[in-house]
């Protein structure tokens, strides 16, 4: 029949009121949580999805990012250029030249798929977020702006202790070791010259 009293219920009348007063007074003596944003920049975590930066030197116009984008907010124009043969008698090569790379941030939903699919590490997240515009059309940012944002991209977070060595570093280390071994053995002088040769000579 009788409902059990809540366990925190106190015998002294008014102790709940006093507890309420204590809570507010204690909060008053503590540090506030307000961030004074325009005066003091926020301390953002390193993987903040602020804006997408384009490292256009790495872009090969493979169009993967534009095709994978769920919002279709990446615009890429390019043309092909022929590169004359590197060695006499060799074959002419064609390569893609980027004409336009634009991201419409009024459509972008910051999913990061373009950054995930880029096989050449040309797209990066930057924590920069102060790019509000007064006109929605001005939110389409062109390649020079995207390239500028690359300077705000932070260094990648350090690997966990005991993590596997990254592929790039492993490859570089192997090459360096090979070079060192070759220099230690002066019988083969032709070997060290190989890596400086352009790729056209391999075929």
């Amino acid at each position: 029949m009788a409902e059990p009293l809540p366990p925190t219920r106190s015998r002294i009348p008014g102790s709940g009121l006093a507890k309420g007063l204590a809570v507010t007074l204690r909060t008053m003596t503590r540090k506030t949580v307000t961030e004074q944003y325009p005066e003091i920049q926020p301390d953002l975590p390193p993987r903040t999805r602020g804006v997408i930066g384009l490292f256009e030197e790495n872009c090969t116009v493979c169009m993967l990012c534009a095709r994978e984008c769920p919002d279709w907010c990446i615009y890429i124009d390019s043309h092909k250029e022929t590169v004359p043969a590197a060695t006499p008698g060799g074959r002419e090569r064609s390569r893609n030249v980027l004409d336009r790379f634009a991201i419409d941030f009024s459509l972008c939903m910051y999913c990061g798929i373009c950054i995930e699919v880029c096989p050449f590490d040309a797209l990066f997240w930057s924590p920069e977020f102060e790019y509000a515009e007064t006109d929605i059309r001005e939110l389409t940012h062109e390649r020079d702006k995207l390239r500028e944002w690359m300077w705000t991209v932070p260094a990648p977070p350090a690997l966990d202790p005991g993590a596997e060595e990254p592929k790039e570093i492993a490859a570089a280390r192997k090459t360096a070791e090979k070079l060192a071994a070759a220099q230690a053995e002066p019988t083969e002088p032709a070997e060290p010259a190989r890596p400086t040769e352009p790729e056209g000579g391999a075929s």
Partner: protein
Amino acid sequence: MTDALDVTLRLLIVFVVFLTFPLIVGQTEHKVMAHMQGRLGPMYAGGFHGWAQLVADGVKFAQKEDVVPAGADRRIFQLAPAVALLPYLLVLLAIPIGPGEGAVGQVLDAGIFFVLAVMGVGVLGSLMAGWASANKFSLLGGLRTAAQLLAYELPMLLAAASVAMAAGTVSLPGILNAFHWWWLPWQIVGAIVFFVAGLAELQRPPFDMPVADSEIIFGAYTEYTGLRFALFLLAEYAGIIVLCGLTTVLFLGGWHGPWGADGLGWVWTLLKTAVLAFLVIWLRVTYPRLREDQLQKLSWTLLVPLSLAQIALTGIVKVVIS
């Protein structure tokens, strides 16, 4: 000639206090409330920690259009803010802050009567606003104000009567002259009743049912804009000053303090008033609003019996010691 100068000077000082102290309380409320909620409060206006926030608010209010609703009782509607504000100015005249003739705007023999009667007039402003606005929310707010006034004026008067009985006089300086430190525990119940009833009379949270903004917009002040609205707000903060000053004078011994020279009595009065004003803000931040029935119940079943018991206690002690 010197008389005229004296009167002018006293009026001027009271007027300046009346205009500045409510602003100080308001700014303190901004900051204290913010920090009690883990915020910073105003930080921009005036440069240093937003000290000029209320000045900026005043400028904003002055720029706004003064709208009178088409269906409103025009003259009454426009008069209401003045009726709400002026009584507190008059009460301020009668509150002594230090011993002697020089530290009070006007010495009144029937000080308590004057002060309590005039304070009751202040609530009339809200009533007038509620009736004259031609708005159902305003009307509801006005009627709630009336109900609250009826409920809380009684314990307030009884508590004040207890002090008057103890001192054997109704003059405010007279009460303070008769004060001894042991009045503090003797009259403590009356002090609490007086303070709580005063809070309710000012419609301060947690007794802000008449202006409960989540249900009746802003009660009697719903239709007000611009300077008239600002006057209502100023009346609320002036009311805090008056209530805290009166509680100090009646129950906390005014200019009497444990130490300090004769010339520093006014510091004690101001200090006690400031502490009470902080308490008003503190209570506002801490407690949620009382429902209308809880509000009435608190007054009739708790405060009125308590104040009657206080009067009985005062009478018994008075007879025993005399």
